[in-house]
C-alpha cells in the first residue's frame, strides 16, 4: 500500500488490535486495527438511524414568547430558510444536517451488516464510495454547537423548553462519531473485496 500523504510504498502487514501502522517517512497513520469493528459500526449506525427517526418525530426546542409558541426541528430549520427566500442556504442546511448523516448511517449499516456474515450486499461498492463522499459534509456536531449559541442569544428573550428531539440529537451525535470511528477505511474495503469474491 502507499501513504496517502507522501506516496511512500509500504508492505501492508497485520498490526495488533488497538494499534495503528504509521508511515515510515511522514508518520501519518496508514491503517488501524480496531477491535470488533464490524459489530460496532453495525450497532452504532443502526442506533443512529433509530435516533434520526426520533429527532424528526419529536420537537427539538420549543420557544414561548408573548403567548405564541414556536417549535424547532431539523426539518423546519431548513424549510423556514427556503420559505424566507434563502433557498440555497436552506438546501445546504438540509444536506449537512439531514441528508449527509442519513447517507452515512444508512450506508454503513447497508455495507457492514451483511459483511458480519461475510457477504457483500448488492451494490455495496457504490454505497461505500458514497460513504467517503458524504463524510466531510456530515455536520451534526456543528449544528449542536449552533443550538448552544442560539440558546445564549435567545436566553433572555423568551422561555425555552428542550424536547425529546434535542436529547435524541445529542445521542445521535455520539453514535455517529462512534460509527465513523469504528472501522478503518482500508479495513472496510479489504473486507468488502474478500466478501465480493
Amino acid at each position: 500500500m502507499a501513504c496517502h500523504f507522501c506516496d511512500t510504498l509500504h508492505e501492508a502487514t497485520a498490526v495488533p488490535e488497538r494499534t495503528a501502522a504509521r508511515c515510515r517517512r511522514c508518520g501519518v497513520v496508514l491503517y488501524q486495527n480496531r477491535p470488533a469493528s464490524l459489530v460496532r459500526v453495525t450497532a452504532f449506525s443502526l442506533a443512529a438511524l433509530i435516533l434520526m427517526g426520533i429527532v424528526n418525530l419529536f420537537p427539538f426546542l420549543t420557544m414561548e414568547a408573548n403567548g405564541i409558541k414556536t417549535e424547532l426541528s431539523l426539518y423546519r430549520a431548513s424549510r423556514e430558510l427556503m420559505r424566507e427566500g434563502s433557498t440555497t442556504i436552506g438546501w445546504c442546511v438540509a444536506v449537512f444536517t439531514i441528508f449527509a448523516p442519513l447517507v452515512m448511517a444508512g450506508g454503513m449499516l447497508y455495507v457492514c451488516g451483511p459483511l458480519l456474515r461475510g457477504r457483500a450486499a448488492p451494490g455495496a461498492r457504490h454505497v461505500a464510495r458514497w460513504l467517503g463522499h458524504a463524510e466531510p459534509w456530515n455536520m451534526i456536531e456543528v449544528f449542536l454547537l449552533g443550538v448552544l449559541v442560539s440558546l445564549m442569544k435567545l436566553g433572555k428573550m423568551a422561555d425555552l423548553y428542550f424536547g425529546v428531539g434535542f436529547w435524541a440529537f445529542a445521542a445521535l451525535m455520539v453514535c455517529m462519531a462512534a460509527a465513523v470511528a469504528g472501522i478503518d477505511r482500508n479495513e472496510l474495503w479489504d473486507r468488502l473485496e474478500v466478501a465480493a469474491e
Partner: protein
Amino acid sequence: MTPRLPRAIDQGLANCHVCGKVSPLVAHRCPRCGSALHLRKPASLKRTVALLLAAAALYLPANMLPVMTISEIGNVMASTILQGMVEFWRREAYPIAIVIFVASILIPIVKIVALVWLCAAASGKVHPSPRILGRIYWFTELLGRWSMVDIFVVSILVALVQFGAYMTVTPGPGALAFAGVVVLTMFAAMSFDPRLLWDRLEILEASENPHSTPDRE
C-alpha cells in the same frame, strides 16, 4: 543521508483516492472500488487556487453584509457576523464570543492563507517543509466545517423566532456569501494534494545532490 524510500509514483503505481488500494496506473480504474485512478489528484493546484480566489472574493461581502435581520416591534436591525460577536462580548458572554470569533472570523481567513501558502510551497515558491505544512493541511481540513456554525445559528433563529409583529428574524444576504466561503474553502482543501509537497522536496533534494544516485532498497 537517510536512504530514499520508494514512492508509488516511481513505479507507475497509483493510490486510489477513494479506497486506498494501490494498482498500476495503466488499469485506469481501481479494480477494488471502480474509481478513476490518478497518480496525483488531477489539476490539484489549479483547482485549489481557483476555489480559493472565489472564496476570498466572497470573504468581504460575507463579513460586511448582514447575515440576518431582526424586526422587533417596528425596529428593524440588521446584524453582521462581527456585530453578533461584539454583542456577546458586551453581554459578558466571553466564551461564546470567542467561539464565534474563532469559528466564523479566524478559521476562514486562516484557512485561505494556509492553503495559499501550501499552494506556493507545492509549486516551489517557498520551501516545502512537508512535515510542518502537512500538519497545517490536516488542521485546515479538520477545522473547516466548524465555520458553518453561524449559518446554523441563522437557520435556528429564523425557524424559532417567528412571532409576527412582535419579533421576527429573516435571513440576510451575508448568509449566502458566508456559506459560500465555507463550502468553497472545504472544496479547496479537498482538491489540494499533500503529496505534491513531498514531490517538491524530492526535486529539491535531487538538485542539491546532483551526483548522488538515489539508492533504493
